[in-house]
């Protein structure tokens, strides 16, 4: 019985009532092959649809399966574990039903079996059950699955390693206590060893497991780092498989986000450059963890932000910002650029030089961007502008910025212009002074103060020359002028 095709779904509910009651007695048949085949059939039915899985549960089949799981041969065990996995993967309620009928202990016993296929099926079922929420994970851990899964990881079969790593990843992702349990079983050393394995799918699961462990707290992240994954993890960033790259950058991000010392460690190991290259070589959602990692590293301190800048991160990030179609990736890139540029004028200059500020402004002003993107780009613009003294980048802002940003821009000009004569000249020749005169501000507001301080840098004639309406006043003077009588 192969998987039922999708277009036959209208008549499945009618079928299922009959099928379950037919299959159930077959599970108790004398011939072992029939038992195995019946179990396999149930598994495939439950795998397809969660209504069918519910029917399997309601048909009271699970206790029989669990009971005979302990005694039968390995084919039956594989088929029964397949049924449990197929039922447990759909929703937490179904998984809870599996736990309630005592399947966990039997599955854990299956994990100790000699046959790697049985172990794989049992580990897969446990992984799917633990995936849903923390209580189910805790139930799986309480059944004593974790040490056996760690043993499974050390087995030579690649498929078994994959499944065991995925199960550990699903267990440890819910809470720090669960992750601590996994770490206490000694999983990190084995996971770290297997990063060098050439199989791509195995690497995906291993990196995912390590990142789920490291994300909860500083201690766990430090333990992961102590397993000497750097600089080996950086080679995973160059892998052919996209998801290996994604999971590797997720792992680095989860480590970097906790403390400045961990970020420093990563930067010292050359991680920043590797991540930047990785961002350059992929597209879409794969880039997102790498972009966030750069943002976290730069957010910790200005030295780290400078390190990101000299690793040539800013051109890459601005490229991401302009060419990615999706809003959430753009928002992440905008946030990261804001974190880099907000520390000191040198940082802001490094960001402004790459011409990202107009892009950020257009994202903020565009009506098509999502709210999150608008908020993040506004914050980034504000934080960069407050430190930016690179005037050629600020000038375009005078023309198209909205008033709340214009205030900051004019403020920056008013800070820089009094001290730099060349900048003053450039400001005049580029038409900035003219634009500043045209800005209308309420007297007494901060904007007016800034405008006044700019006007004070220049002689009165120039200010008058550029103030709006000067030509009219001149013409009026012409009108009212009496030529000298000769």
């Amino acid at each position, binding site marked *: 019985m192969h998987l039922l095709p999708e277009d036959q779904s209208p008549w499945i509910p009618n079928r299922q009532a009959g099928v379950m009651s037919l299959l159930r007695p077959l599970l108790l048949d004398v011939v072992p092959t029939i038992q*195995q085949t019946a179990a396999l059939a149930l598994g495939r039915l439950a795998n397809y649809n969660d209504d069918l899985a519910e029917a399997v549960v309601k048909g009271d089949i699970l206790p029989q399966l669990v009971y005979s799981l302990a005694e039968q041969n390995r084919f039956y065990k594989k088929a029964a574990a397949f049924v449990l996995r197929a039922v447990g993967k759909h929703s937490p309620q179904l998984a809870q039903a599996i736990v309630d009928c005592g399947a966990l202990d039997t599955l854990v016993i299956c994990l100790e079996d000699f046959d790697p296929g049985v172990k794989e099926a049992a580990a897969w079922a446990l992984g799917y059950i633990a995936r849903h929420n923390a209580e189910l994970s805790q139930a799986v851990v309480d059944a004593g699955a974790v040490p056996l899964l760690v043993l499974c990881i050390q087995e030579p079969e690649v498929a078994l390693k994959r499944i065991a790593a995925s199960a550990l990843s699903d267990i440890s992702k819910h809470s720090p206590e669960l992750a601590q349990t996994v770490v206490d079983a000694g999983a990190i050393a084995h996971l770290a060893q297997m990063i060098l394995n050439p199989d791509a799918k195995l690497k995906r699961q291993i990196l995912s497991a390590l990142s789920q462990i490291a994300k909860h707290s500083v201690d766990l992240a430090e333990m992961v780092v102590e397993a000497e994954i750097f600089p080996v993890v950086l080679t995973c960033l160059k892998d052919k498989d996209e998801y290996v790259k994604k999971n590797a950058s997720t792992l680095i991000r989860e480590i970097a986000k906790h403390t400045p010392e961990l970020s420093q460690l990563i930067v010292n190991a050359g991680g920043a450059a590797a991540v930047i290259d990785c961002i350059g070589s992929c597209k879409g959602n794969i880039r997102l963890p790498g972009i966030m990692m750069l943002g976290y590293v730069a957010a910790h301190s200005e030295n780290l932000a400078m390190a990101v800048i000299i690793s040539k991160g800013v051109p890459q990030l601005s490229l991401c910002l302009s060419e990615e179609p999706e809003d959430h990736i753009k928002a992440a890139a905008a946030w990261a650029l804001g974190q880099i540029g907000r520390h000191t004028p040198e940082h802001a200059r490094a960001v402004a030089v790459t011409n990202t500020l107009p892009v950020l402004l257009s994202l903020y002003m565009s009506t098509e961007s999502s709210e999150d993107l608008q908020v993040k780009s506004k914050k980034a613009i504000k934080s960069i502008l407050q430190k930016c003294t690179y005037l050629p980048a600020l000038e375009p802002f005078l023309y198209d910025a909205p008033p709340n940003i214009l205030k900051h821009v004019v403020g920056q000009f008013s800070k820089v212009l009094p001290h730099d004569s060349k900048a003053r000249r450039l400001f005049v020749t580029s038409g900035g002074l003219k634009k500043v005169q045209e800005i209308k501000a309420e007297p007494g507001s901060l904007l007016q103060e800034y405008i006044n301080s700019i006007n004070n840098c220049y002689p009165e004639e120039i200010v008058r020359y550029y103030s709006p309406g000067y030509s009219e006043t001149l013409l009026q003077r012409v009108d009212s002028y009496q030529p000298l009588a000769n």
Partner: protein
Amino acid sequence: MIGTFSYAKFLKFLYSVAEAERGWEKSGVNGKLTAPLDWLYGLVRLPGRRIVTPVVNQMREAMATLARLQARSKAVGQQYYFRNSVVDVFRKKENDAAVKIQSWFRGCRVRAYIRHLHRAAIIVQKWWRSYLSRQHYQLVVKLAYYTMKMNLYNEMAVRIQRRWRGYKIRKYCFDYFYLKEYLRAVTETNDAIRDALEEFAEMKEREEKKAALEREEKKRDYQARKMHYLLSTKQIPGIYNSPFRKDPDPWELRLQKAKPLTHQRPRVKQKHSISLTSWLACTSNRSFPRSEILPPINRKQCQGPFRDIAEVLEQRYKPLEPTLREAEPINELKEAREDLRRQEWIRNVNDNMFLPFSSYHKNEKYVPSMHSSSKYGPNSYGCQRFRDENPKKWICPKDFQTVLPSFDLFSKYGKLYSKAGQIV
């Protein structure tokens, strides 16, 4: 008053009285006439004092004067009144003048007194003020001195602190050169990592390419082995060795190198049941252990009718080669068929045979042509072959079974250890 009494003074007094009296005669003052005389009398009557004769003479003179004066007393009265009335005219004026003079004088006197007081007060105040100011001045000086010292100390302290703070910031809090060094080191590490990763990626690519090439090679090799028959012979040039070409196609060389492919014999599947082959094969290693060391090459032949040691060892360690009769069970074919049927039953969704879609419309029954059919049923000439099954003619529904297996005659031919029957 009664102390040392001086007669000279007393006489002077008497003379002054007399002159006064004379003056009084001129001026007409009356009232005090008797006073000196009384005094005199009182003095004369002083007890216990003897008066000296000059004094008595003077006293007599005085008495005479006194008598004279008493005689003129009446005229004095008149004269007195007259002189008073004459004088009265100028009295007011002279009084005023006297008052003015007196007032002016009094005024001058008072002013002088006040001036004197002023001067005194000024001196006192001057001294007092100078004392106070000197004290104050000392305080001010002390304060100024103290301030000056403190300023100096502050200045020095500021210098020290400036130096120390600069040093501390530059060395411990923000070491600019260390930062530059660190950033340079980071750049270097980044470049090194980038190079290493590039190398790694290149290596991976090379490996993949190599693996792909090897796969290609293997595929071509396999093809060459399959197409070995296309090799050119002496008589007939093969396809790839056309006489019109300058040099033969590379496939020709490949065909030459390839070994002709013979189809694989079906491998004997490992049975789950414990079979003869596996048991003996696995026991042979344990029960008849082979030594690691091979026997020496130039071992001398043992004397006697012994066989060659190599042959003996070969025979000794020969693995079991059961005959076909033992190796395969008697109903192996039947079991295989059952196995296949079971497998299919597990696997198939539908037990009906899957007919191709093209035969859906082929459910028409074949109507034979008139020529090949007669009224007694279809002619068996064109449509029934002698190999067709005719279930109606069968005597029983089951197939024939091989009861006795074939026996093998020549399976051990040439493989027996004994040399019986061999043609020498």
